[in-house]
């Protein structure tokens, strides 16, 4: 490429990169402002929107709920998804094709549809809205990622290693603990962390399954954004971004996260 071509391409790309990161950076910057209303660029810097978080019990409750919800649904998705990945990768059984299609369907289907389908389904039983609804909704959207990331590791897995362990006298539990688990660990960690992130971020499924008392953080932010633009939203959002960035960095360091999950969102 000519130097001029390289320069033009570089300039265009720089603008597009700015477009990609600007809305995120702006949120972080606003959160350190001092004005009682939305102001950009912020006049003086301060931590007032962080120190006054205590005056917004809604946000704190939602933050806690989202952490619990993400931890439990990612945990369950990891167990269920890993078992499923083993079944799909190692066995030929009746209904296998159907199950493998079904497990990818929540990725293909718009989250909105999953949400309203679950809303109608749960209301059929006339039970009170509960944590269980949110938990199941999040499990449905996160489990495919675990199946995929564990499945990706299992594809290149040499089962003779396990057989050798068994042949040397290890029981099934010991063989799993000493051979299988260490080998699938990268896929397992990537899947679990990505499930956590997706759950912690989820809006479209949660919005139909919340109750007045159980409002996950993204929905709480949604409700606030809908009615005002106060900087408190920026500080809460920044905290959420921090949680996710920390998780992504940890995942990248541990297992090279991006190799296992392309980065999809629905």
């Amino acid at each position, binding site marked *: 490429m000519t130097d001029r071509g390289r320069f033009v391409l570089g300039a265009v790309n720089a603008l597009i990169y700015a477009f990609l990161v600007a*809305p995120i950076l702006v*949120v972080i910057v606003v959160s350190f402002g001092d004005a009682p209303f939305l102001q950009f660029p912020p006049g003086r810097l301060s931590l007032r929107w962080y120190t006054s978080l205590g005056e917004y019990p809604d946000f704190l409750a939602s933050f806690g709920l989202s952490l619990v919800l993400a931890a439990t649904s990612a945990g369950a998705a990891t167990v269920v998804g890993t078992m499923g990945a083993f*079944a799909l990768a*190692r*066995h030929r059984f009746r209904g296998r094709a159907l199950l493998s299609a079904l497990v990818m369907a929540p990725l293909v289907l*718009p989250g909105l549809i999953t949400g309203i389908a679950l809303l*109608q389904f749960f209301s059929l039983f006339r039970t009170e809205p509960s944590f269980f609804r949110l938990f199941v909704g999040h499990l449905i959207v996160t489990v495919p990622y675990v199946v995929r990331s564990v499945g990706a590791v299992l594809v290149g897995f040499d089962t003779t290693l396990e057989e050798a362990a068994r042949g040397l006298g290890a029981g099934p539990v010991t063989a799993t603990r000493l051979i299988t688990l260490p080998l699938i660990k990268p896929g397992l960690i990537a899947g679990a962390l990505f499930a956590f992130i997706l759950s912690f*971020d989820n*809006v479209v499924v949660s919005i139909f399954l919340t109750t007045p008392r159980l409002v996950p953080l993204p929905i709480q932010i949604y409700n606030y954004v809908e009615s005002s633009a106060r900087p408190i939203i920026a500080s809460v959002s920044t905290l959420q971004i921090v949680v996710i960035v920390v998780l992504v960095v940890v995942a990248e360091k541990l297992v090279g996260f991006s190799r296992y999950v*392309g980065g999809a969102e629905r």
Partner: protein
Amino acid sequence: MRKPGPPAAWLAAPLTVLLGGFFLAPLLLLLSQSLRLVVIGQPAPGGLTLQNYVRFLADPFYLGTLRATLVLGVFVTVLAVVLGYPVAYGLARARHRWRTLLRLCVVAPLLVSVVIRTYGWIVLLAGNGVVNQTLLALRLVDEPVKFMFTYTGVTLGLVHFALPVAILSLVSVIEAVDPALEEAARGLGAGAWRTFLRITLPLTLPGLAAGSMLVFSLTVAAFVTPALMGGPSLIVLSTLIYQTMTVTLEWGFGAAVATILLVVATGLFLLYQRLLGLARGSGHFA
């Protein structure tokens, strides 16, 4: 030969129960509701009917939302692919130490919650926001541009989300093009444009087609951006579904609109996967 580890039935059971009981069953219920005249709080008349679909297809307002959704989808897809191509090209050919950072910038919008991104856009695009201040200072406009609750604003918000998707699916197809081919074209006297149009673009076309189909299906199904940035004046299929399900409580009709969205978005997604079979290597996503 016996496979090591526990039997299949055992391993597959929890996943099957979860997806069968809490995904497939609700979906089938949704489809069956779309064929009934369910309104919450009212006794449901029995029998199956196509009336919900007829109501949608016969009403210019509802057809207008369908059209708005599709137009927005096409527009956003074209923008995402046109803007995404140079970025993807740069990433695919980059060999420098900034590569990881640049990749991170690309995926950042996908990792940050859509509500937060939208809030960022609201801050940027407000009447006295940065974008308007800049436009006024540069004397490109005489008075603040109204972005919020307009097509322009919603399009910007949606492109922000669609662009990373487009870039990620393009990077892998461009990487698959041997740079030697481009060098050969240049060596034979083709200019940069000609090389791009005759070599790079045709070779990446299948992947580009597949990627844009994915972007389109994600865009037409998007909910948060149109809901928060479009406001009451810009109704697309997803916001119509939300209103019907939570405000007017006409669940039968809502289910029918959902089914229509499902066909538009997922039908294309499946086509995308079919195309993917033709264009191996663009499977960064799905």
